[in-house]
C-alpha cells in the first residue's frame, strides 16, 4: 500500500446514522414552528388558549346533546338548565332533511339507489385508471336516474336514450359530407324518433311503472344534489363550447358567445332564479307547464357555464400559439386539434378554476330556498323551524347543513388536488 498522504482509501463504509435529536422529528418541528422567537412563543400560547377555550365551552354542548326527544320543549326538560344541544331534531326529521317532506317514504329506496349508482357512474369519469368500458354505464346513468327519481314508465327514458343514440348515429353517418348537414339530419332524426316514441310511451304509461313523483315533491338534500350534479355535468361541456365559441373567428358565433357570457356574468344568480320562477314561464306556450326544477336547472347551468367558459378561456390563452401551429402544420383539422392537443392541455390548467366554480355552484343550490323550493336549507327554514315542536333549534340544524356541505365540497376539492398531481406527474 502506498504511504502517500494524497491517496486515500476507505476500507470501512460509514453506516447510515440518524440526525441529532434537536434536528429531527417532533423536537425539530416544535422548535422551528412554535417557539422559534419570543413573539412566536406568545402567539403559540395565545392560539393554544383560544383553541382550549373553544373546546372547553363547546364540548358540553355536544356531549350533553339530546338525541331522543319529541320536541324542543322536551329537550329543555331533559337538559334541565344544563347547556346542551338538541340533536333530536336531526333524528326525528332526518327523512325530511334528506328527501323533503313530500317524497313518498315507501319510495326512499329509489333516490338511495340513484346515489349509489351515481358513485358507480362517476368512478370511471373521475379515475381514468379504471377500465373505460364502464363509461358505457355512465352514459346510461342519467336516464336510469331519471326513472328512479321521477318514476313513471321506463319507456320514457329508454326512448329518450335511443333517440339520442339514433341522432348521434345519423350525425356520424352524414357529417362526413358537411358538419352542418350532419347536425340538421341528426336533429330531425332524433326529434322524429322522440315524437313517435312519445306516442308509444303514452299508450303504455303503466308498463313497468314506478310510482310517479312530480318535481314539486322533490326536496331536502336530494334536491341540492340533483340540481348540483345536473347543472355541473351539463355546464362543464357547455362552458368549454362557449369558451371555444368566444375564440372562434366566425363573428356571429363569437358575438353570440360573448354576449351570453357577459350578460350572465353581469347578473346575480338570485335574479336569474327569480326569472326562472316567474318570468320564464311566459316564454313557453301557455298550457305547457315546464317544471320549476327544469327551469331552475336551466338557469343554474347557464350561470355556471358562463363562469366555466371564462376559466377555460384563461386556460386556452395560457397555451403557447406554437401548440396551435404545430397541430395545424401536421394537418389536423380544427376539431381534432382542439380535442387532441389544445383542450387536454387547456383543461388541465383550468382544473382548479373549474372546481372552484363548481363547488360554488353546489353551495349556491341552497339559494333555491328563496324561491320557495324546499331544498335542505328550505326545509330547515320552512317546514322544520316553523313547527311549534322545533321552533328555535337553529344551531343544530344549520350546523348539520353546514357539515354536510363541508364534507361534500371538501371531498371535491381534495379530488381536484389529487387529479392535478396525477396529471402533473404524468407529464414530467
Amino acid at each position, binding site marked *: 500500500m502506498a504511504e502517500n498522504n494524497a491517496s486515500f482509501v476507505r476500507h470501512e463504509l460509514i453506516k447510515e446514522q440518524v440526525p441529532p435529536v434537536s434536528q429531527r422529528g417532533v423536537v425539530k418541528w416544535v422548535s422551528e414552528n412554535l417557539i422559534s422567537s419570543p413573539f412566536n412563543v406568545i402567539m403559540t400560547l395565545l392560539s393554544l388558549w383560544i383553541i382550549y377555550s373553544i373546546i372547553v365551552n363547546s364540548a358540553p354542548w355536544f356531549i350533553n346533546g339530546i338525541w331522543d326527544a319529541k320536541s324542543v320543549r322536551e329537550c329543555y326538560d331533559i337538559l334541565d338548565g344544563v347547556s346542551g344541544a338538541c340533536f333530536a331534531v336531526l333524528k326525528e326529521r332526518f327523512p325530511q332533511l334528506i328527501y323533503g317532506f313530500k317524497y313518498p317514504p315507501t319510495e326512499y329506496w329509489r333516490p338511495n339507489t340513484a346515489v349509489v349508482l351515481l358513485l358507480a357512474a362517476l368512478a370511471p369519469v373521475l379515475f381514468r385508471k379504471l377500465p373505460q368500458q364502464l363509461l358505457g354505464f355512465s352514459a346510461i346513468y342519467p336516464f336510469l336516474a331519471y326513472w328512479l327519481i321521477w318514476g313513471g314508465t321506463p319507456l320514457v327514458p329508454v326512448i329518450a336514450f335511443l333517440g339520442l343514440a339514433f341522432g348521434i348515429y345519423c350525425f356520424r353517418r352524414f357529417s362526413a359530407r358537411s358538419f352542418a348537414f350532419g347536425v340538421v339530419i341528426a336533429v330531425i332524426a332524433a326529434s322524429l324518433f322522440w315524437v313517435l316514441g312519445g306516442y308509444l310511451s303514452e299508450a303504455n304509461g303503466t308498463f313497468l311503472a314506478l310510482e310517479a313523483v312530480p318535481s314539486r315533491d322533490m326536496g331536502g338534500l336530494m334536491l341540492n344534489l340533483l340540481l348540483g350534479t345536473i347543472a355541473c355535468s351539463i355546464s362543464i361541456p357547455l362552458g368549454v363550447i362557449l369558451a371555444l365559441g368566444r375564440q372562434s373567428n366566425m363573428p356571429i358565433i363569437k358575438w353570440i358567445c360573448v354576449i351570453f357570457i357577459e350578460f350572465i356574468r353581469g347578473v346575480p344568480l338570485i335574479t336569474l332564479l327569480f326569472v326562472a320562477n316567474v318570468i320564464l314561464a311566459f316564454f313557453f306556450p301557455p298550457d305547457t307547464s315546464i317544471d320549476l326544477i327544469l327551469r331552475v336547472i336551466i338557469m343554474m347551468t347557464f350561470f355556471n357555464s358562463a363562469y366555466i367558459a371564462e376559466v377555460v378561456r384563461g386556460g386556452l390563452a395560457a397555451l403557447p400559439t406554437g401548440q396551435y*401551429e404545430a397541430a*395545424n*402544420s*401536421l*394537418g389536423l*383539422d380544427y376539431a*381534432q386539434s382542439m380535442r387532441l392537443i389544445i383542450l387536454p392541455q387547456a383543461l388541465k390548467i383550468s382544473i382548479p378554476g373549474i372546481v372552484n366554480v363548481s363547488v360554488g355552484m353546489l353551495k349556491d343550490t341552497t339559494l333555491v330556498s328563496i324561491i320557495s323550493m324546499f331544498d335542505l336549507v328550505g326545509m330547515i327554514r320552512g317546514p322544520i323551524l316553523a313547527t311549534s315542536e322545533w321552533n328555535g333549534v337553529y344551531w343544530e340544524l344549520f350546523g348539520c347543513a353546514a357539515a354536510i356541505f363541508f364534507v361534500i365540497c371538501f371531498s371535491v376539492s381534495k379530488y381536484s388536488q389529487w387529479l392535478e398531481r396525477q396529471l402533473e406527474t404524468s407529464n414530467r
Partner: protein
Amino acid sequence: MNRQAKLEVSDEVAIGIQGMNKWFGSFHVLRDIDLTVNRGERIVVCGPSGSGKSTLIRCVNALEEHQSGQIIVDGTELTSDIKNIDKIRSEVGMLFQHFNLFPHLTILENCTLAQIWVRKIPQAQAEETAMHFLTKVKIPEQADKYPGQLSGGQQQRVAIARSLCMRPRIMLFDEPTSALDPEMIKEVLDTMIELAEDGMTMMVVTHEMGFARQVANRVIFMDEGQIVEQNEPEEFFNNPQSDRTKLFLSQILGH
C-alpha cells in the same frame, strides 16, 4: 467539401410563388415575392431580424394568409378553402424554433398522432413508422418519455421525426437551431444534412452559414420583406452583389 453537386434537382416545381404580397394590418411585410423551388432543392433563407423570413415560409403552409399573388405547393394552389389547406399541410412538414412538441403526449404518441387521425393509419403500423423515424434521428430509446424529459437537441430531432412520419414531400424549417445550445446544434444539423442527402425538398430559415455552404444549392437573402439577392452559396458568400447583402454578411461572419 461541397456535397450539393451530388444531389439531384429535378425540373418539377415543388413550390411556386408569384407576385405574392402580405400585409399585417397596414404593415407591408412581404412585397412582390417571386420564388420557384424545384423538387430536391435545398433553399436557405437568411436576412436581418424582422425582414419577413418566418412570415414567408409560414405562408407556404398557410399558417399565415397572403393577400395577393399566388402560392402553388405541390401542384395545389393555396386558397382559403379549408380542404386544400389541410391537404397541403399534411404534405408539408414544418419545424419550429421552439420545437412545439405536444407536452402531454409521449414521444411515440407525438409521432403517431397525426398518422392515426389525419392519415387514418392503424395504430400498430403508425407506431412502426414512428419507431423507424425515431431510429433515423437516433433516439428510439426515448420513445416512452415525455418531451419535458428530453434535451433541446433531442426535442428538435423528435420534431423532425414527427414531421417525417407524415411522409412529407417538402420540409420547412424556421430557425430550427437558434434555441439550442452550441453542442446540440450539430446533432440537429447532422440530421438535416441526412435529410438533404435523402433528396428532401427543403426551405430553411437559418443563420448557420456553415450549413448553408455545405447543404444549400441556393441562398436567398431577404430584407424589408423582399428578396434582395439569391445565388449559389459559393457565389453568394464570396461575391455578394448588393450592399445590403455585403453589410449583412460582414455582420454575421465578421468579428
